[in-house]
């Protein structure tokens, strides 16, 4: 999933302090799971904003809506009838949701309420860690299912650097060396032959280096 973290409320207030009608817009998917932008967080932010405005003595309205997703037309259309009445929307979906909301509601300012961090997993409640950087040409088949693009600090594709020590990365002793993990796993699945194999240069044009990307699937287009 896409992992996000809550923005400090003061940063959000700075954006909307002069607004009169604000909509806090949550998302039921990734950001709900990482407890940054779901219905519950919508409630907390909206409540805090309502009290902030009341305390300033300004008459204001802060509404709360949480959509199934903010990255699909059909769900974002659900606020079509209501959107016009707001002079700001705070989207607490990931950056994708914030942008799609802004695209759709062109004349209404849309502000991000979270910092979108990475594609990752819930290791345990309250701990999310990165697993993928959407490089566009997945090499997990050769690396024992462990991604050196996202998990090696230097994005090395041919084994560890000299800084790997006792299974940890030289950037921090809390960070596993991705290549240690890869080798451990290749051994476990008896595929150390993959470590010896030479691969051609990775096509980084499929990554961000090639500019904004698209996936086009004519077979599923309507």
């Amino acid at each position, binding site marked *: 999933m896409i992992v996000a973290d809550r923005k400090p409320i003061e940063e959000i207030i700075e954006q909307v302090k002069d607004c009169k009608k604000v909509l806090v817009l949550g998302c039921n998917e990734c950001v709900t799971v990482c407890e940054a932008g779901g219905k*519950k967080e919508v409630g*907390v932010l909206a409540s805090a904003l309502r009290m902030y405005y009341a*305390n300033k003595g300004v008459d204001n309205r802060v509404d709360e809506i949480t959509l199934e997703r903010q990255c699909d037309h059909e769900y974002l259309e659900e606020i079509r009838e209501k959107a016009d009445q707001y002079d700001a929307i705070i989207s607490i979906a990931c950056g994708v949701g914030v942008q799609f909301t802004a695209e759709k509601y062109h004349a209404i300012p849309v502000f991000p309420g979270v910092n979108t961090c990475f594609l990752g997993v819930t290791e345990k409640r309250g701990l999310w860690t990165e697993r993928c950087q959407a490089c566009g040409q997945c090499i997990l088949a050769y690396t024992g299912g462990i991604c050196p693009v996202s998990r090696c600090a230097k994005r090395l594709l041919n084994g560890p650097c000299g800084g790997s020590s006792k299974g940890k990365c030289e950037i921090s002793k809390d960070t596993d060396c991705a290549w240690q993990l890869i080798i451990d796993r290749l051994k476990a699945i008896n595929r150390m032959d993959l470590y010896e194999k030479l691969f051609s240069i990775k096509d980084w044009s499929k990554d961000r280096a090639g500019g904004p990307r698209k996936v086009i699937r004519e077979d599923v287009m309507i």
Partner: protein
Amino acid sequence: MRLNYPASVKIIRVPCTGKVDVIHMLRAFEKGADGVYIVGCKEGECHYKKGNYRARKRVEQAQKILNTIGVGGDRVQMYNLSSSDAPLFVKYANEMNERIMGLGPNPVKLKKKKAA
């Protein structure tokens, strides 16, 4: 042991303090409460293991939010006691009551009243 505690304290019973979320505390202030305190079991003695630790973290979050929006984080507090310790319960109630009396009414409530 029929001990008295301040009549301003309204008790809301929850199965475990771990049930109390930030939003519950904020809503209480939105609805005009002057202070909120959570009384959990002693640390390390939670029946559900971590409920009271979670409550403490959430109280801290609520304090931060209330400070940011100018309501004042001092209006929320976490207390721990053993469930049979009535004198301590009363002591905490008095302590919180005094603190809130010192801080005065919830500013949001005052402003809303003025506006109405």
